[in-house]
Each structure stands twice: as structure tokens, then as C-alpha cells.
């Protein structure tokens, strides 16, 4: 297909879709409207279960089945990336070379690393209270580890990152989420229903029933997933090279 034809098709399709969209926008309830039936119900349900952060309650309690699906997508993409970026038969591994880093940068990285790690854990732990949760905190914690790559070099990172452990951790935390859900079935209520845990006092770390548990499982899974993902990409960019290559 020539570029010209593609542009014509694109212009036609884009114009049609734009017209449809814009017409739809003018049929929408105005921005900032007051009618949110589902949202209002969700707030009530969250407060009834003593979860201060309504969004966490929606994520890990009311619509926990969605989060199960999202978590599985995450798990699948990471597994897919591991499979797709495997070392093929015509590739070999080179040793990464040490990297010179200016002193202030190195010091900064080493100081910020623990701070970032703690912030990540803080964001996970307070997921059911203040803004945050497993998804956000997990990413922050995983990013923190990679300060070692940025502030030192790849070898330093490899030393503290046994990738196998992270892979097992990823799979185990995904399984933990499922097992927490299955406990509800075994107890005779329903999948992902809270049967055992008390709801605790409003606005404390242990409130919300299964929410903190599922939140922690997600936090661990996300952290492991991002570490594995970046490890595969770093392997490709730094270590793996073609066998017949010059270097």
C-alpha cells in the first residue's frame, strides 16, 4: 500500500471517528456533574468496611476480581517478556564493564536508594489509608533497586539481584492473591470474600479485612515483576550480544 493511499484511508477514518467522538462528547453529562450512582455506593460500602481509602476498597475488595485479572495481565506480560527476551542459541553473554561515575552522582544514588526503598514500602503499607497501594509502591521499590545501575554499574546491581528469587516471588505472590480468594470459597461464602479477618478500627493499618493482605500481595508481585522486566531489558542492552558480532 502506498503512503498516499494510507494517508487517504487514515484521513477518512480519522475524520469519521473524530466526528463521531465529538458528537458523543456533546451528548455526555457535563464535566464535573453530580450523578455518580456506582461511585456513591462504593464510598458507602468502603466506609461500612472501615477502609479509609475508598479506591483501595474498590480495588481490593469490591472489584477485587478486576484486580485479579489485571494482576494476571501483569504476570503474563512479564512471563512473555522473559520468554521473548531469552538468550537464543546464536547469542552469547558478554561481561558488562565497570562504569565511571562522578562522585556526587554515586553518593546521591547510594543515599537515595534506601530512602526510595522505604518510601516504596511506606506507600504499599498505607495503601488502605492514604493515597497509594501495592501497584504504586511496588513500582517505587523496584525502581529504587535500579539506582544501583544508574549510580554504580550493572555488576553492582547483579550482585544484589538474584533474579531467580524474584521470579519465584512474582509467581508466589500472584498465587497468594488467588489463595486468599479461594479461602473464601473453602469457607463457604464466595470467591474473594472476607470470611476470617475482622475489619478493625477505621483508619488504622490493620483495618479493612482482606484489603491489606491483597494489597501486600500485589505490592510484592509488582515489585518483583518490574525488577524482572528491567533485568531482561538490561540483559539485552548490556550483556547479550550476537555470537558472530565483532565485539
Amino acid at each position: 500500500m502506498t503512503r498516499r493511499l494510507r494517508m487517504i484511508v487514515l484521513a477518512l477514518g480519522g475524520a469519521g471517528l473524530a466526528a463521531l467522538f465529538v458528537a458523543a462528547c456533546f451528548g455526555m453529562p457535563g464535566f464535573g456533574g453530580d450523578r455518580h450512582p456506582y461511585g456513591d455506593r462504593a464510598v458507602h460500602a468502603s466506609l461500612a468496611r472501615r477502609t479509609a481509602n475508598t479506591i483501595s476498597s474498590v480495588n481490593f475488595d469490591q472489584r477485587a476480581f478486576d484486580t485479579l485479572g489485571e494482576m494476571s495481565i501483569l504476570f503474563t506480560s512479564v512471563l512473555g517478556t522473559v520468554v521473548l527476551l531469552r538468550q537464543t542459541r546464536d547469542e552469547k553473554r558478554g561481561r558488562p564493564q565497570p562504569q565511571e561515575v562522578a562522585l556526587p552522582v554515586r553518593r546521591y544514588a547510594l543515599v537515595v536508594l534506601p530512602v526510595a526503598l522505604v518510601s516504596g514500602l511506606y506507600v504499599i503499607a498505607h495503601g488502605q489509608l492514604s493515597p497509594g497501594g501495592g501497584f504504586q509502591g511496588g513500582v517505587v521499590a523496584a525502581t529504587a533497586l535500579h539506582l544501583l545501575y544508574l549510580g554504580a554499574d550493572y555488576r553492582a546491581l547483579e550482585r544484589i539481584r538474584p533474579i531467580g528469587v524474584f521470579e519465584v516471588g512474582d509467581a508466589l505472590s500472584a498465587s497468594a492473591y488467588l489463595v486468599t480468594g479461594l479461602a473464601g470459597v473453602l469457607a463457604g461464602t464466595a470467591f474473594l470474600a472476607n470470611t476470617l479477618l475482622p475489619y478493625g478500627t477505621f483508619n488504622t493499618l490493620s483495618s479493612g479485612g482482606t484489603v491489606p493482605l491483597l494489597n501486600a500481595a500485589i505490592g510484592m508481585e509488582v515489585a518483583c515483576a518490574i525488577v524482572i522486566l528491567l533485568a531482561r531489558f538490561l540483559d539485552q542492552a548490556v550483556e547479550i550480544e550476537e555470537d558472530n558480532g565483532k565485539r
Partner: protein
Amino acid sequence: MTVLPYLVAVWIFLTGCYGLATSRNLIHAVGCLAVCQSATYVLLLAVGYRAGATAPVYSDIKPGSRPVVDPVVQALTLTDIVVGATVTALLLSLVMQISKRHGTVDPDELRELRG
């Protein structure tokens, strides 16, 4: 004002599609796909907004003291952002393999699958 956020979402989506269709570099194309995805976040959050309300997070305010926005769309968006990044990574890893096997990441030069 009442439709501006929706129109911005539509604009972002269509721009992303345009970039995807005319891209000359597959890494750039995957970036454009991420732009398309951010359009969905903007639209969802615009739908859930309530004028003069605040976030439904009760760690620092008393329940019922202020009107709150819709938490459901926020929950939908939040997970999608992290998951979207990993799907982007999956596509990027395919792009890397394409660069290895085809020696190029220009879609115009990929001529293996036709007819």
C-alpha cells in the same frame, strides 16, 4: 468547559492513532500506543470528576465532611497504568527481536509478510 476534558481525551486518542499510522520507527510507534492509552485515562477520570469535590480518601478528612469524586473510575485507571507499562514492555521486547531478526525497526522496510 463542560466538554473540554472529553475533547482533549479524543484529541489525544486521535493524535496517537495518527502517530501510530505514520510512524517510521517501531519504538516510536509503541510510544504512540502509550499516548493512545493515556487518552483512556483522561477520559475515565474526566467522567468521574465532580465539581468542588475532593478525593475519597479519608485518612486526613472526616467521612461525609466534603463531597467526593467517583472512586470507581480511579480504581479502574490506577491498575491500568501499571499494567499498561508492562504491556508496553512486552511490545518493546518484540521490537527488539524484530531489530535482531530483520536488522531494522522501520516498518516500511519490513517486507516478510505480504499477500
